[in-house]
């Protein structure tokens, strides 16, 4: 009886502890990517004399480049497995999903493999992003009549 109760208690507590740990790791890694982004923005605006808008575009391209490169080199998958949403939610996850799909499916051919499957994961982001942006933009135009 006591053992049963003990097992039940363990079952109840084990996943929640891991959830808290996962959430904490995601918080730290996601925050770290945010700080790297801010560092890059200030680096570009200081050394290349860019406006903060242009510098943030450069920052995103830089993050995408390194996420793609690290995915291609093979060790980004391990990082994603460790950090989970800490690297999936930032823009790095977008680049990671596209590069890993591209590398994975290239052996099935350039059109039927690479071309058809590259957007398997990133496609939903673009689809729902565009549809929601258009609908919400529409609402905004009706309510406020322009910018």
């Amino acid at each position, binding site marked *: 009886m006591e053992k049963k109760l003990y097992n039940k208690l363990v079952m109840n507590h084990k996943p929640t502890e*891991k*959830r808290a740990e*996962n*959430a904490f790791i*995601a*918080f730290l890694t*996601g*925050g*770290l*990517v*945010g*700080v790297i*982004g*801010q560092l*890059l*923005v200030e680096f570009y605006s200081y050394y290349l004399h860019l406006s903060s808008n242009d510098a*943030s*575009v450069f*920052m*995103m*391209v830089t*993050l995408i480049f390194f996420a*793609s*490169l690290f995915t*291609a080199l*093979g060790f980004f998958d391990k990082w994603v497995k460790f950090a*989970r*949403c*800490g690297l*999936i*939610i*930032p*823009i790095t*996850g*977008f*680049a990671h999903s596209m*590069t890993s799909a*591209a*590398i994975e499916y*290239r052996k099935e051919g350039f059109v039927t493999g690479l071309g058809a499957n*590259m957007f398997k*994961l990133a496609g*939903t*982001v*673009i689809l*729902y*992003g*565009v549809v*929601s*942006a*258009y609908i*919400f*933009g*529409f*609402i*905004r*135009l009706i*309510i406020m009549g*322009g*910018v």
Partner: protein
Amino acid sequence: MIYIYSFLFAGFVSMLGQLILDNTKLTPGHITSLFVIIGASLDIFNIYDLIVAHVGAGALVPITSFGHLLIHGGLVRAHDLGFIGLMMGVFDLTASGITSAIFFAFIFSLFFKPRD
């Protein structure tokens, strides 16, 4: 100070995603799509612009900024050209991100093989 805000905001969004991932049956694809929609919806009344102004790049790094940039580019064009302008501008600000992601993914897939 902006580094701390960047850290907190980007970390908070990532943590939110992780909590959804662990506590529901949604996949990362669902969560990123959901976050893009949230990012776009927050820009109806310029809320996300306000966040970006206070938090800096920490608000531009999470995928929510993708939705924000989509609607923002559209609204800039819509100012002059209305509903058709909205269509023209949707990709204006995200073009660099999408182009670079496609380009790098293609180039790297030529030179690297999948590993397990």
